[in-house]
């Protein structure tokens, strides 16, 4: 991730360099906008990462596994969606977890709902989303994304 970040940052620095040659004034304006949005979101991001740390330690994969492995049917599907919604972390971490659950005999629709919800519904990042887009948007988007995750999970069970 650090390398990816470095690559992107380098590309942006080059872009700013090129733009500066075209129009120094507008480039300074861009920098000001960038600085402002960084300053506004920085405390929120620090908070989100602090919470991520707490979640990874106090809600480790084993706990998720236990919860999802024990449930079945509808309650498994909803648990999958809810656990995906509160869990936060790279999908790289979701796949092995989901794989081990499937191997252990978990219901496939619940696992599919878990993955989709993991990536597209974020309870911890909801405050950031509300700060950027407004509360109404954040609630509507996450609510509908959650329902869609359950539906996609069910359909995966029918098709696959």
């Amino acid at each position, binding site marked *: *991730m650090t390398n*990816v*970040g470095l690559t992107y940052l380098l590309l942006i620095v080059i872009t700013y360099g090129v733009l500066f040659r075209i129009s120094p004034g507008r480039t300074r304006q*861009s*920098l000001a*906008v960038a600085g402002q*949005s960084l300053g506004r979101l920085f*405390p929120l991001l620090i908070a989100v990462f602090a919470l991520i740390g707490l979640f990874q330690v106090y809600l480790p994969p084993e706990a998720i596994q236990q919860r999802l492995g024990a449930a079945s049917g509808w309650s498994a599907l909803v648990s999958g969606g809810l656990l995906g919604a509160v869990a936060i972390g790279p999908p790289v971490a979701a796949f092995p977890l989901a794989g081990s659950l499937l191997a252990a005999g978990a219901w496939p629709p619940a696992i599919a709902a878990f993955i989709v919800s993991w990536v597209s519904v974020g309870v911890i990042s909801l405050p*950031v989303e509300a700060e950027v887009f407004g509360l109404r948007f954040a609630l509507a988007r996450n609510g*509908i994304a959650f329902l869609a995750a359950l539906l996609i999970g069910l359909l995966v069970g029918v098709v696959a």
Partner: protein
Amino acid sequence: MKLKGTLWTLLRSQWLLLLAIVLYGWAFSVTPDRALEALTVAGTSFSSVLLLIVAVMGLVGVIQVWISRDLISRLLGRQGGFRAFFIAAACGTVLIGPAYIIFPLLMSIRAQGARWGVIVTVLAAYAVKIPMIPLEVQYLGWGFSLTRSLLTILFAIPIGLAVEAIMERPAAIRPP
């Protein structure tokens, strides 16, 4: 009186940070070892995406100042028609990085004239990770991974339209 107002503003704007501090305070008093572990996890994951955060904010600045409103609203606004949604779905599947870093980027596009449905479609299609499909297949098999990815793409545009409908409901019938 002034101090009270300032405190209230601070509480309202930084409640999440305060919540995190309170939770850590609690965690440290109950299980210091695990709290320290959590803090380490937080620190390492934050530093690993810090450069990406700075880069994305730089991109936000470029989009807001240099990309013309006309172009964005022609491609991704109402004028873009259905093509706007296909562009959005395609962009969503190739984007990487945590969603909360993408939010400001999408908001800058929205501010330049993209419609709500397009923003939501990007975020919905974002659950398909084309760069990571090999990894998903390795753990979950072809049948499962492809079905899940295809269904996610199929749902992306309807999800976008649904949230847009909620956002654009007339104020009169908005719930209080």
